[in-house]
């Protein structure tokens, strides 16, 4: 069933949360595939299962049922520490809140995934390269509170890139930024997608952000309501 050319292959994914007595069906059978280098946006109103789907794609949680192949590996059945390794090697996260370590320099923040990967000798060089790729080569020793919102998000993108992941998963990447910084961040993500060939998944409720994607999945009530191809 698994097709080799897909970086993501999701088959009939379901997720049921037990909230006390009530079962909440957050995902009711979601299937789609993503090709390497593709830019995909996932949209949907709150309560549509958008966040749950993002958690599944990001290997932060196991689905109740269904299969998820990431970069050729069946990840939907892995246990906690195996998932941690998959997140470390294959997924770069960009969060709405940036989520940088507050008392660490940009460089240290970008080095963090490499430390968990056990990279020792080339760690600093790789981190510097990633920071240069996002245009922050001159800000490596700054702490987050010395950087603007846009710059902080660039550090986060450098951190997402540094392990050379199969996909970058961006959750409302412009949600905490003004329009100008937001546009720059989207431009940067697209540039990286073009130059590095990194697959880009953007979860958003903002149609303007989704507009840059090649394909948009609209989620509603835990199922894909429609799939929209952009040009």
């Amino acid at each position: 069933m698994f097709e080799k050319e897909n970086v993501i292959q999701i088959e009939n994914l379901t997720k049921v949360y037990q909230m006390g007595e009530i079962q909440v069906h957050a995902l009711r059978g979601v299937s789609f595939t993503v090709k390497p280098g593709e830019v995909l946006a996932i949209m949907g109103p709150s309560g549509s299962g958008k966040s749950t789907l993002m958690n599944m794609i990001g290997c932060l949680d196991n689905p109740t049922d269904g299969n998820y192949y990431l970069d050729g590996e069946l990840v939907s059945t892995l246990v906690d520490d195996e998932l941690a390794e998959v997140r470390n090697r294959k997924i770069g996260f960009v969060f709405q809140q940036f989520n940088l370590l507050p008392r660490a320099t940009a460089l240290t923040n970008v080095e963090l995934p490499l430390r968990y990967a056990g990279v020792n000798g080339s760690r600093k060089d790789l981190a510097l390269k990633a920071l240069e790729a996002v245009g922050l080569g001159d800000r490596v020793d700054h702490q987050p509170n010395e950087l603007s919102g846009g710059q902080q998000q660039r550090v986060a993108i450098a951190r997402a890139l540094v392990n050379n992941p199969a996909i970058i998963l961006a959750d409302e990447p412009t949600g905490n930024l003004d329009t100008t910084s937001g546009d720059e961040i989207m431009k940067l993500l697209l540039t990286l997608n073009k130059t590095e060939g990194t697959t880009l998944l953007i979860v958003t409720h903002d149609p303007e952000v989704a507009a840059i994607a090649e394909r948009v999945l609209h989620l509603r009530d835990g199922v894909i309501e429609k799939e929209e191809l952009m040009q």
Partner: protein
Amino acid sequence: MNLFLNVKEAMVSLSANKMRSLLTILGIVIGVASVIALLSIGESAGASITGEIENIGTNVIYILRGNNDEDVSNPKDLTLRDAQALASSTRATEIAYVAPVFTGSTEITRADRSVSTAILGITPDYQFVMNLAMAEGAFISAAQVEGRSAVVVLGPARAQQLLGRSSGVVGSTVRIGGYPYRVVGVVEPKGGSAFNNPDNNVYVPISTAQARLPRSGAPDRVQYILASMVDLDNADLAIRQIRQVLRRTHRIPPRNPDDFTLLNQQDFLAVANTITNVLTIFLGGIGAISLLVGGIGIMNIMLVSVTERTREIGLRKALGARKADILIQFLIESVLLSLFGGIFGIALGWGISTVVSQIATRSGTPLDIVVTLNSVLLATLFSAAVGVFFGYYPANRASNLAPVEALRYE
């Protein structure tokens, strides 16, 4: 993840809350300091007691009235006659010297100096049993015992205290219980500590003591008898011989228990060791309780820290941190807290021990308090163990946070 980076990172997050970290460390400082101080005080008190018992001499057997191990009603007093029987018995071949002691407490004065102390009424053989050397003059003689003479031999420290000097005092007069006594000799210093320092002893002829000190019981009653052995290797035989002689003089029927007790230095040491061990455990226990309280402080602060940093934990997990990575990160923080506490605690404990030692010495009870390497190592290891033990629960809680929920935490 290498250790150096982990430690560096832990230092950064601990220094982010300096006051909180310092107060947490303070709890451990107090705990470790009390363990160090109380253990070393207990140990040195024990050492000083043991040292005094060793002053008794290894080949001396103490003979006391009564028997604590068996139920003996109405035990006979020990008397001078018992001592004479032991000394003159042809069967007691392993007994070298026998020294009966009649002791009582009274006032001893010289000019305006006055001190209340125990007076030892002894026979000349006491000198040989206790192996006393004379610094000047002579020990109590048989003639002085015979004649009930008002003469006294002083320990050097007592001479110093009463006469202001410990040499050239033969011929001086002191008053004991109001009667004048001529000083006939001063003993060589033997050393010992305050509880029972032979250098403080005051010796008079046993006949004089029996006549002038308050007494009860049989007319020739003595409180205890000392006997020295010919050969330490034959201690068992010596003890058997003493029992044979005393059972006969006390007319104890066969199968009835002894109405006296024989103790040698080993027995005293065993009792003293039991006492000092209990003392040390007791003091160490008090220290351990404060260390425990400090440890609970660490646990408390680490739990707060885990809650505050839930998002950070979620982020680290999203970036690929395994459970073990998070566990180690938080454990290192708690171990660092307790280790710093341990280091400062050792310094403080050492300081307290020194101060106590000074105070004890100034107040006349020289206690040589030594903070041993062992107790330092023990305190260091123990405080690190406290860090691991009390840090484990919070760290484990952190490492088991679900990444999804941790990232969502506000």
